[in-house]
């Protein structure tokens, strides 16, 4: 404990294996692989990092996917960082010339206005170095990940319960899991207590508090929920 720790989504094993390897071997960062569901890396209690290849980022066909993803991250985390990484050139291929488009510039402009931090990387190796810088910065600000990231048995069930609260991130659920002995202690907590137990902002704690106290009305269930719940 005490060393830098990053949570990586299991999908990153195939899409960015070198990032994880460099983090572990070159930078001495503990990288724990979890199923983060819609987020690439969690670097601290408040910061998530999304990794996109330049070709994926600059292709306007991916616009709505990107918008949904960033909105989702912004609803869960106080800070969102996007790393745009140059595509890897396969042996025998020449690197394609990158054409800067209107779409590219306007997307960058919107992201910056929305307060998303954008970083550019030329390789998986550089992405790892950037993640290392970010995790060190967050540690200096006392927002680094300090709880154990692997849970089992009853704690796993409790984690899943917390994860079902809308806009609660994996790290917030983990913090709640480890900082509070029983679930009923959370459901009876004040907003201030949720702030300190979950390591979240006051606003996020209020959201959680409201959800736990929300009075369920079966008449409000949409017909579509009768089969399987889906977010519209």
């Amino acid at each position, binding site marked *: 404990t005490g060393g830098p720790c990053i949570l990586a989504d299991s999908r990153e094993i195939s899409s960015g294996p070198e990032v994880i390897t460099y983090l572990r071997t070159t930078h001495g960062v503990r990288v724990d692989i979890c199923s983060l569901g819609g987020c690439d890396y969690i670097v601290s209690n408040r910061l998530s990092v999304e990794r996109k290849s330049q070709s994926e980022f600059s292709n306007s066909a991916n616009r709505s996917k990107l918008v949904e993803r960033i909105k989702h991250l912004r609803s869960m985390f106080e800070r969102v960082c996007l790393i745009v990484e140059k595509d890897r050139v396969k042996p025998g291929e020449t690197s394609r010339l990158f054409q800067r488009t209107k779409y590219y510039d306007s997307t960058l402009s*919107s992201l910056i206005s929305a307060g998303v931090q*954008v970083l550019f990387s030329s390789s998986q190796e550089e992405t790892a170095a950037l993640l290392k810088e970010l995790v060190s910065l967050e540690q200096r600000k006392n927002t680094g990940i300090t709880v154990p990231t692997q849970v089992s048995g009853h704690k796993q069930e409790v984690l899943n319960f917390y994860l079902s609260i809308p806009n609660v991130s994996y790290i917030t659920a983990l913090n709640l899991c480890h900082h509070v002995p029983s679930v009923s202690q959370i459901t009876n907590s004040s907003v201030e207590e949720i702030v300190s137990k979950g390591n979240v902002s006051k606003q996020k704690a209020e959201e959680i508090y409201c959800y736990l106290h929300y009075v369920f009305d079966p008449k409000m269930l949409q017909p579509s929920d009768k089969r399987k719940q889906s977010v519209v």
Partner: protein
Amino acid sequence: MATTQSTPVRAGASAVPYGHVIVSEKWRGTELAQLLQGKVNLMFEDGLGLVDFHLPQRACILYISETDLVSGNEFKRRLVRFRKASNLRGIVLAERTRLSDQYYSPVQNFVVLELGMTLLPVTNRSEAAQLIFHLIQERSREGGSNPFIGKKRCHLSEASILQTVQRIPAVGRVKALQLLHHFPSIQELSNASLRDLEAVVGRGFASNIHSFFTQT
């Protein structure tokens, strides 16, 4: 240079009308200014100090040329002075060319991670003009039209709560609805006594649910 020393950032330049940009006099007649002309309203002004362009909504641009990047630390001092003197949103545009490419990564660490400003690469002045145009456009749109800010997803709370209750081991949809009928919020459900729960779902389930909430 003397004026730059005394007024690092011009006061009052924070209120730029939509679709306009205040441009430092030193850019007059340059290729970059010509490329912007006609697309946005340029207003040239003297004495902007460290800033090259003032944009709407309290943003401004500091431009770092290829030569600045290659020749060293002068631009870093400029950025630090800007950061200390101003609370405007500083966007740094840096010319990342084949020549200056190797300097980009440490500069990115410095500008973004240390100073907490934004850094965007351009390869030449015409790319810079395009990007500046879009930055102005973005800051000139009516509020709420930023796709990344747009309203938070509206979750159907009822459906979410039903899902949450079903995360209690061995509780399916039917049991969850029964429970919520008697204890309509998660908080109430968590405080239900064993006896109250037994009356709704029977002894076995009741003890499961009760221990889920109270087990430490």
